[in-house]
């Protein structure tokens, strides 16, 4: 298929800076509990991430400036699902987040991606919600986690947008997002947490897929979200949480042979239920038709 190539090739990354209102969004309190987030630390960590993407991995980085009005806009992964030359602008669950998409839409249009909207409130997709952090694209197919933030209708829109691919829905348990418990660790590798909920989701994924993936199980949830990128020089990069944040899982990453491991801290964002991949949108502008 025109759009089908092994997972991991990216040329661009789109990120959005951490605003000073970081952690102040409604609902954050709930996710946050007592813990308070440190803005400066979050910004530092954000800087490290973008630095790694740009300098280590070699992606072109597009940074959308932070907007204090949009305290969650740094979770840019949620607002778009991009595959090939198509970007689906999603409809996040939270009403107040829906204006985050404007800047993103602008950027992806500039990158000459085909922009697909999920549509207005009314109409066919009324009630559809979808967030990018519930979408796992494996290079061969999509898995959409049906979670508190993403519903079946939202998944349908995604399926309608990316017609080449099988789009399977899987349950996500415990109020988390699909990408909190799993991520791609290579063209055919899924990194997944060892929790019971994650295992259940994984079983469903295995049931639904026509393909076979290698599975790298990590003992901690926080470790399950990584960013895998095959760099321009065919180097496998894996951005993962550092040992301080997931002490038991680092050894699992060592099993990935010939990888360049880039420990990247993300402790502040993770306090808000986000993780490494939440902070960036990855795009491949080099399509290869065959």
């Amino acid at each position: 298929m025109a759009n089908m190539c092994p997972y991991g090739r990216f040329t661009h990354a789109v990120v959005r800076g951490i605003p000073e209102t970081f952690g102040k969004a409604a609902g954050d309190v709930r996710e946050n509990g007592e813990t308070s987030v440190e803005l400066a630390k979050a910004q530092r960590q954000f800087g490290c991430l973008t630095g790694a993407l740009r300098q280590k991995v070699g992606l072109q980085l597009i940074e959308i400036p932070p907007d204090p009005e949009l305290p969650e806009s740094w979770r840019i992964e949620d607002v778009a699902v991009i595959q090939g030359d198509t970007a689906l602008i999603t409809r996040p669950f939270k009403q107040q987040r829906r204006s985050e998409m404007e800047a993103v839409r602008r950027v992806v249009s500039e990158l000459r991606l085909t922009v697909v909207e999920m549509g207005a409130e009314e109409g066919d997709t009324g009630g559809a919600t979808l967030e990018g952090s519930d979408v796992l694209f494996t290079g061969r197919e999509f898995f959409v986690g049906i979670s508190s933030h993403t519903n079946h209708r939202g998944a349908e829109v995604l399926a309608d947008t990316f017609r080449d691919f099988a789009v399977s829905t899987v349950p996500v348990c415990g109020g988390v997002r699909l990408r909190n418990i799993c991520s791609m660790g290579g063209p055919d590798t899924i990194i997944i947490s060892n929790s019971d909920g994650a295992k259940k989701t994984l079983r469903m994924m295995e049931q639904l897929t026509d393909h076979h993936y290698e599975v790298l199980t990590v003992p901690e949830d926080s470790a399950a979200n990584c960013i895998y990128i095959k760099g321009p020089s065919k180097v496998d990069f894996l951005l993962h949480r550092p040992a301080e944040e997931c002490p038991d899982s680092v050894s699992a990453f060592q099993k990935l042979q010939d990888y360049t491991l880039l420990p990247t801290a993300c402790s502040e964002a993770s306090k808000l239920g986000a993780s490494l991949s939440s902070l960036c949108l990855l795009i491949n502008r080099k399509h290869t038709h065959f």
Partner: protein
Amino acid sequence: MTTESGADSEAKQPQENKETEKGKAKAAAAAEPTSPQNQPEQLPAAAGHSTPARKEEQEHQEGDQVSHRSSTSRLSRSPLKGVKKTKIMECKVAMLDGSDFTINVEKRAKGQVLFDKICDHLNLLERDYFGITCRDVENQKNWLDPSKELKKQIRTGPWTFGFNVKFYPPDPSQLTEDITRYYLCLQLRDDVVSGRLPCSFATHTVLGSYTVQSELGDYDPEELGSDYISELRFAPNQTKELEEKVMELHKTYKGMTPAEAEIHFLENAKKLSMYGVDLHHAKDSEGVEIMLGVCSSGLLIYRDRLRINRFAWPKILKISYKRNNFYIKIRPGEFEQFESTIGFKLPNHRAAKRLWKVCVEHHTFFRLISPESQPKKFLSLGSKFRYSGRTQAQTRRASSMIIRPAPLFERSTSKRYNMSVSLDGAPIMENHETLMKDSAADGATKISTTGDIITMVTTEKKAEEEKAEQEDARMDETQEPTGTTPLGRDTKYSFIRRVKGENVFIKHSNLMLEDISPPEDMVKHQTNISELKRSFLETGENAPGLTEWEKRLSSSPVRSPREEAPMIEPLELQDTKDEQPAGEDPLEEVEPKATEAAGYLVKYVVDSIATDLATSSGPHGISLSTTMDDDVFMDGTRREVDEVLERSEMKVSPGAVRQEVSQAISDKKGTLIILKEADDKVDAEGKETRAAGDEEEPVVPEEAKAEESEMLSASKEKESISEDASVVVEAKTKMQSPKTEIKTDDMTQIKGTDSPKKAMASWLSEVVKSEVISESTKEVKQTKASDALQQEEEEIFTFEEVQTEQSKSSLSPITVSESSTTSLAVSTLGCVSSSEKGSAEPEGKMGVAMETKAAPAESTGPTGLDVVAVGTKEVPVVHTETKTITYESAEVDTNGDVDHGVLLSAQTITSETTSTTTTTHITKTVKGGISETRIEKRIVITGDTDIDHDQALAQAIKEAKEQHPDMSVTKVVVHKETEITPEEGED
């Protein structure tokens, strides 16, 4: 359009409806090299419903036009018989290119007749992927059953049909002919344009551009004009933007041939998630609207566009329907205890039946080696319907035999979407070519249930299959030119060659139990004798077919770069001896099944490889499928066959320690038997040879070889060739010089076995000891009735052999660890030998037929399945019949890492009762930090009564499973020897 016409064919005139009246494919293949005759007059292009009178007229026409073809002449004669006037019906078939094809068939003709006529008209040989549809009263598309009469399938309405792709090959690059791909492309274009095959804008663009290239050739604004593109349709909603993008891409394809463009088209299309998915509306148990999609891999459940569940064929135990309900029974999952049945509601009974039929057919086509013979087993309810055509495995096998040069055909611009009128809708046919070697080209494959050889293969489609397939494609390119390289042989390749008798059939039963069998592997198991025979006889022409064959099998999970293209040399006595690459210790497994009373070998392997993908997703339990290759050795036949083949194949099967181990045992037996035969005929000489060879082998294998070569100059060849890790051994035995040939066989065997011997662990040798001894004892018992002295000698000899082997084995216990560090293992997968001595000719004219079946490691894993049967006929009275069944699951690590680990411990426990001997063998190895326990259990049952091996096997497996619930069965070998009455053997 251009036609290469045969000597006897007239220049063809373009005409709308070209009638090709021929017999079945068989007749065609039998190759009257006549080209289709064109009708001098055109039939009315769009004849409506014809009146009887007119029909007769048409018949006469036909009769005149094409008189010498059997079916036609029958047609033309029949009305003259008067009594039963055969009504001729005019069928209108919507072809894939959008044209209508009008054809006359007898009213009572079966679907197959129409189908064959259409395929002949299209000049299509790989026809099993296609089928005929007709609309029922609800305007639903139904597939015609080729085995039923047309008129019974069209109750009402006009005789209008559609010619369509029925089974979408998962990897179209494995199709043999461009013409087949072309028709597949046409179907897919229609699927795309109609929206049945949804795709993204980008994919529409790409597919469209290849369509344009294939139909119109290179971009040429002067010739094509600027608007050429809007004449064609690429998408359900075609936009200007799409057309522009298509044109943009089209410009970049300069120089691409139509066939190439179609390959690209298919490479893209096959990856679409809805490729080849046949959707049926249904409701789930809660009344929610869903879609059931039937495809090559199983059953998919969609809600809207979302896939909400999937049941791969191996997970489905049973499919049934009742009224408007459709049920699937699901194998219990890893954590479940019971099987479950899921029901769906279809709109009506007909829909339920239709879905059920499609499931049955897809399952049979894609999953089985050969169609099931009894509908009872898997489909218990209602209909006796079953798929009677060839399976994908069979069709691949058959198409690998296509030896005609690529037919010329016109890619008519697709009329359906194109405003311009094409000159001639009829593709050009070249029927003067020999079509297929497979004379049984017609859909119905004969099935026979009884016989001596039962082959069964279970292989599992693994994660890598797709990859492997791609790999395949890649390898194809490289291999094609080197197809005839004498040495190399890919791991994956396996061949079954049978030369004797016309009666080799394959039967597959026990359907749903198997795990997915990669077609590649299956293919080899179904072999039509005459095909093989021919392919062997026609030396020169063999190459193309085999090349194709090689392609098919080339998908290696291991992808060892060392492996070279396979070589088959049909007629020459040539042994290719393999040598391991430096530092590697090959395990060659020769698995000729010796005469064993009835042995069940059940092997368990704890699958503890954490990274084993298949393990993580595939069903673990034992997976069994049964295929029976029936090979009845009849004396007469045998004598007549003056060419007998012996083929042994070595398989490089890294990671397949299990097989090796289990086969190693049989190795020895095999050797024994061969030797025995040799003994019979060659007498002292042979004995000496054998003895010498055996003695020396363990210590100095080279010497043994030298010995052998002394005896047989031909064997020198072997040595000189012995470079590659892959081996193809073929020997042709001719009746006139039985001795020599036997020797050859002998040598081959010895050679084949020497390294396994080396590789054998001491424990193995122990097992072998006991096994073989008991076997041979049994043998003696059995054969004693046949008072011949020779016979006894044989037995004794065999016994000696055993001893020799024992000592040998004990000499080299260390070898196991050697082999465990090996990354390559060479195994001869199977060998079948039968020797017969005509009692009338005591001085020993004999035919020795050796058959080797090798099971290639499939794309998924090094799995071998071998079935070997030895029909030994001794002098006058007693026949022994040997039956071997190997069941094997492909649960082998797919990583290609052949670190066999370090042997931790091995123990052998033997227990005996009066009629059974059970040897349990437990080995523990450590590889890569993971310990693996293998248990090999060998049960020898002796007795006068018939042993129901199925039952005994089931029992053995069951027991074993109970004893070791945490282990999985990877291989089951059933070996059965019975006495048969002499008459059976002699006629």
